[in-house]
């Protein structure tokens, strides 16, 4: 059913390597393979979740989608409404400014992502002015309208960020992303720094805004309960690779990749009757500078066989809209979330 939905973003073989200097006097040049060949699509109007451990490349992927970094290789094509397909990696600086009206970002840390020397009004107005989307009176009108929509009051606009709590700061960050009325927002861990009672307010707000403005989200998070709540589909990343992607319920209850299975078994459910039985992963997450040969997960995988160390598994669609990269996805009997 989903495959008939229009595609908004198409990501093709995306790679990003960061150079690091290693060895004696830093003579040896090596690369952190932060994102290593990732392909997927985001449908219009959906919320696509991206989960994985720290250092798995979630944030880098999110930033690449907005060309916050220049990719090492690969394409990101946007199919914006009433426009031709747009490969953002080929855009000039000027075209990129135009594109930014359509895609925005919300950051994790509401304390460091707002300039402490700007008033809330100026923070929210900045995208309008930077992209020359509005002038004079119009700026104020847009700012007030957006602030109200994010449940900030007009008095708040004169103040500076330090006067606000974490939850209100995150509303300011959302208003800043929303003021251009974008089609697509990358939400990078938008609620991980917030208290439980505030987290619910922000999740509800994101959901309401999505319904009202027809937004599409890429939702990066590590709290799997939050991801399950808000996402239509979820992708799992491990060491710069996507290992699985499927509709949320399918992924949680019928995972096809051993790493997803381990993640699902480690969710602490808020119910003392449901005791978790975590699958122990061997060893630690390897360095993305020297990733393991073959399947990046094989040194920690309890099902690994000789083939896994040699051949990198293909990213394939095993059943409609259920993608996985594992040699043995068909034969493994994996268990999903137990609750």
């Amino acid at each position: 059913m989903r495959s008939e939905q229009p595609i908004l973003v198409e990501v093709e073989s995306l790679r990003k390597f960061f150079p690091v200097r290693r060895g004696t006097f830093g003579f040896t040049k090596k690369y952190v393979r932060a994102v290593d060949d990732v392909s997927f699509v985001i449908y219009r109007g959906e919320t696509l979740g991206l989960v994985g451990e720290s250092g798995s490349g979630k944030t880098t992927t999110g930033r690449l989608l907005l060309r916050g970094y220049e990719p090492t290789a690969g394409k990101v094509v946007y199919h914006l409404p009433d426009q031709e397909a747009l490969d953002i990696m080929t855009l000039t600086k000027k075209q990129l400014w135009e594109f930014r009206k359509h895609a925005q970002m919300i950051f994790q840390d509401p304390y460091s992502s707002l300039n402490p020397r700007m008033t809330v009004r100026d923070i929210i107005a900045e995208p309008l002015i930077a992209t020359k989307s509005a002038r004079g009176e119009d700026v104020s009108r847009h700012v007030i309208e957006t602030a109200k929509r994010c449940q900030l009051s007009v008095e708040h606009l004169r103040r500076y960020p330090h006067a606000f709590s974490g939850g209100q700061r995150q509303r300011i960050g959302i208003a800043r992303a929303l003021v251009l009325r974008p089609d697509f927002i990358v939400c990078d861990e938008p609620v991980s720094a917030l208290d439980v009672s505030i987290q619910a307010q922000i999740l509800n707000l994101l959901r309401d805004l999505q319904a009202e403005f027809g937004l599409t989200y890429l939702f990066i998070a590590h709290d799997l309960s939050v991801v399950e709540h808000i996402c239509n589909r979820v992708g799992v990343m491990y060491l710069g690779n996507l290992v699985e992607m499927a509709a949320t319920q399918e992924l949680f209850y019928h995972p096809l990749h051993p790493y997803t299975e381990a993640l699902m078994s480690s969710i602490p459910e808020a119910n003392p009757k449901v005791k978790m039985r975590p699958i122990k992963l061997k060893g630690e997450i390897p360095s993305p500078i020297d990733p393991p040969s073959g399947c990046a997960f094989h040194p920690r995988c309890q099902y690994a066989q000789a083939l896994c160390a040699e051949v990198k598994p293909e990213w394939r669609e095993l059943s409609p809209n259920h993608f996985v990269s594992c040699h043995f996805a068909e034969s493994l009997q994996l268990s999903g979330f137990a609750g």
Partner: protein
Amino acid sequence: MQLNPDELIRISNLKVTFPLDEGTVRALDGVNLSIKRGKVLGVVGESGCGKSITARSILRIIPDPGKIDEGEIWLRTTVGSSDGSERMVDLARIDPNSEMMRQIRWGEVAMVFQEPMTSFSAYHTLGDQISEALLTHRHVSKREARQRTIEMLERVGIPNASTRVNQYPHEFSGGMRQRAMIAMALICNPSLLIADEPTTSLDVTIQAQMLELMQNLRQDFGSSIMFITHNLGVIAQIADEVSIMYLGKVVEHGRVGDIFNDPKHPYTIDLLNAIPKIAGQRKDRLVAIEGNIPSPFERVPGCPFHPRCSRMIEGLCETQAPPEIEFGNGHFAVCHLYPKII
């Protein structure tokens, strides 16, 4: 004051204030809690509710200029007795710099801090830092201390412990550093282990391993654990009893099953509704708690939760401090909603 036979520590009516230039912050406003021997008490609350200050009060390491104004912290301890017999000590009343307090700190009560990245000294090997605790508190030779450090590192699941004992903190990953932190806390076999958000900065798979590790260690060493977190999922998995804190007060306490299945205080009820649950019914919206946590400089009169409470009784909740109502099995809530006698 007499502790019950199964109690290890009891805090009653603890008040801690921070006199600052901007005004006085009443960080703890009459905290009552108790931890039983060999049990895990989960302490849940949002930022600013005083959970970390409660922990630091026990160790008497409240950051400046905070001070204990009132209240008692009774601990059962063998420190200071010549024949190894137990006695009760009020930690609130002894000098934080006294020899007695130094002995209790890490000898009897140890703590795992929130930030595994910053809690170790960068200039000393992990082995030296862990064995220092042993050399300070137990009569052991350097060689024996080193041997026990290696054993403890193995016990918490650090591979190649005999080589890693000579490494520096930066050579360890976050999860491994947190394991080392737990090894350091347990090296003197404390009767109480305080864990302040020990898994918050960790990934879920590592978090699950840490929780399992702490469960096993509790069985092996018989320590009581005070587990501080804002993650209700973690609490459901590890705690025997739970205390819910809000603005410097414990508003509800009970066994973990009672708290999750039959919460009484509106704050607890709202918190449980506010978290997304996977196994629960699909809901489009979460039930958010309206408003924000009030500024720490102004403590609200009456019940601290009344400005955000959906079941506030006008004329009562904003003027009078609510009573403590007991529901049986040690389950109580501090709230006006319930009749005095049940």
